[in-house]
């Protein structure tokens, strides 16, 4: 392999980590918020697909990428609110509801998104960070999604809010001890519905990054399990919004290996390399979970870790 190929490959993987990592970051932040309140939302996969479609449709119809982003986030919040409300009903299990919403969200997105497969929508602008380099591969790799800095600021803000604010404390209390929240006169269901809806809004930004930045078009294979990987990613990040940043970059990089190898002409095993993020997620789970033991940092009321 020549030096140029190595540079292209490295740039491809780093650039991929930034591009592919952005949706991971938003979805994992959304899931982190939801899980902190004591509820798991497996339906974020559905939220991601639906919001990706809504963002693309919104941008296509209004001509403004930012209105598209807003459409995506609102669509995500609506679907997540449905999850939050359903789970508050007596005897309704949050894991099963998540699976149902995965189906409903995907179905709605495919149905409503049928006319959107052909057209082009205005894209989210990029921020060029690579102008110092002569290599075009490096320059194109460092054209980052304008939403990515928003995500990083959001992660820091969430970390600060969980630690320092009244709202953050309420969410954590609902997640760690519902009885304590009830004893203080707060509605646990209310807090959880709000946290789930806000989580859906944040995850919707991830959906918007998919269709309005990279890969930048709407098709029915736009997300294959990123929403679910994000659930695993939150476990890996031990429910810390700051660690979600690193985890998202790591997973984005793993997801970029296949396309990066293809760009330097290695076409063998394309589908195999595309399974790397899933295999990687499983390995990470093996490393971070222990049988019969609760993962450190997990909210006490969470049904998936109990």
């Amino acid at each position, binding site marked *: 392999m020549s030096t140029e190929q190595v540079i292209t490959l490295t740039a491809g993987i780093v650039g991929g980590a930034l591009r592919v990592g952005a949706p991971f970051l938003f979805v994992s932040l959304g899931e982190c918020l939801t899980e902190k309140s004591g509820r798991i939302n497996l339906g974020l996969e559905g939220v991601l697909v639906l919001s990706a479609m809504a963002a693309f449709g919104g941008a296509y119809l209004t001509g403004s990428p930012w209105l598209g982003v807003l459409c995506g986030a609102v669509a995500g919040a609506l679907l997540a609110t449905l999850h939050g409300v*359903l789970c508050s009903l007596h005897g309704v299990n949050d894991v*099963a509801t998540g699976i149902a919403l995965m*189906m409903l969200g995907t*179905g709605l997105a495919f*149905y409503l998104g049928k006319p959107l497969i052909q057209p082009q929508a205005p894209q989210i602008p990029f921020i060029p960070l690579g102008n110092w380099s002569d290599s075009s591969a490096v320059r194109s790799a460092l054209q980052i999604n304008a939403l990515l800095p928003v995500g990083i600021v959001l992660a820091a803000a969430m970390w600060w809010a969980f630690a320092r604010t009244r709202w953050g404390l309420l969410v954590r209390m609902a997640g760690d001890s519902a009885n304590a929240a009830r004893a203080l006169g707060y509605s646990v269901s209310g807090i959880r519905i709000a946290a789930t809806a806000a989580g859906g809004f944040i995850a919707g930004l991830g959906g918007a990054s998919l269709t309005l930045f990279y890969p930048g078009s709407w098709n029915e294979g736009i997300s294959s399990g990123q929403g*679910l990987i994000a659930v*695993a990613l939150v476990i890996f990040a031990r429910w810390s919004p700051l660690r979600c940043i690193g985890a998202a970059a790591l997973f984005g990089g793993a997801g970029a290996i296949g396309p990066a190898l293809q760009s330097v002409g290695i076409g063998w095993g394309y589908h195999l390399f595309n*399974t790397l993020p899933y295999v990687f997620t499983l390995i990470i789970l093996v490393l971070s*979970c222990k049988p019969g033991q609760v993962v450190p940092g997990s909210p006490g009321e969470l049904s998936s870790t109990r």
Partner: protein
Amino acid sequence: MRKLLSDLALPAGAIFASLLVFGVFEWLAGVNPIEVWLLLFKGAFGDWYSWQNTLQRAAPLMLTALCVAVPARAGLVIIGGEGALVLGGLACAALPYAVPLPANLAGTFLICAAGAAVGALWIALAGWLRQYRGINETISSLLLAYVAIGLFKHLVEGPLRDPASLNKPSTNTLAEGLRIGGIAGSDVHWGLVLGVAACVILWLWLRWTPSGFAVRVVGGNPRTAQLVGLPASQLIISACAVGGACAGLAGAVEVAAVHTNANASLIAGYGYAGILVSFMARHSPLGIIPVAILFGGFGAAGSLLQRRLGLPDASVLVLQGIAFVLILASEALRGLNWRALLLRRAPA
């Protein structure tokens, strides 16, 4: 008795409600809902042709639903049946590459067994990861399904590809004698019998045998299981393997009876629809039979909706999603004391 009544009434009510909601959704999309309902019924159960289509789709649904139901009885939520299905189908198509097979019933049995074995291993892996590594089985089974699909595409488009399949990469076509044929000359293949038989046998197993009872104890109350010394991990992993074998068999049947080789058409979402079927049947293997026929019917009607009204093929997915949400929501109504509610309201 009362329990049976609510077991039947709640899902039936949820289905009617979801048809209603689906009708409203189509009405909002500018389609006459009455026409949609009529076509749904006609495409699913209207005539013998529709019935054949329905039953053809019901067969894999029964088997993939068992992949959810049996582990669920042991207390696990497995949603990766799609992975076991595609690998089962692949194993079935790939076995003739490895060993010369007799082109008769024995050969058919062997390719089906290969599919079931691979499916069993795949889902048992999710059970093993949960018992010995503490990994949530819902997440791991779905991740494994994506890995399975990647593996499937790699092998079908690479090492196992039939060079003659140009536009649609496929494996070699199965010999005529290995395929599963129709029942009495119809389009309904013997896979339906396999599906019904699997449902009945697993129902008998769970209901009447000591090991089936042990699985239900482990699922119902893990602490009791521990106290009476049941080998929980073995039972859970076996339940996963049994479920996975069913899903693998579903893939093998689809290949041997419908597609005749393994190609991307096999990834049709039966694994995911099976989750819905199993939840609706409350994870009862016997209940799965009618529910699978119902949803097989909706699947069959989907293509009619597409042809007649020009609706997107995702209509069926939307209907499935609505039905799933309402089925779960109907659980909130279970066990309500209706008489007390009515009496309290009546005097006012």
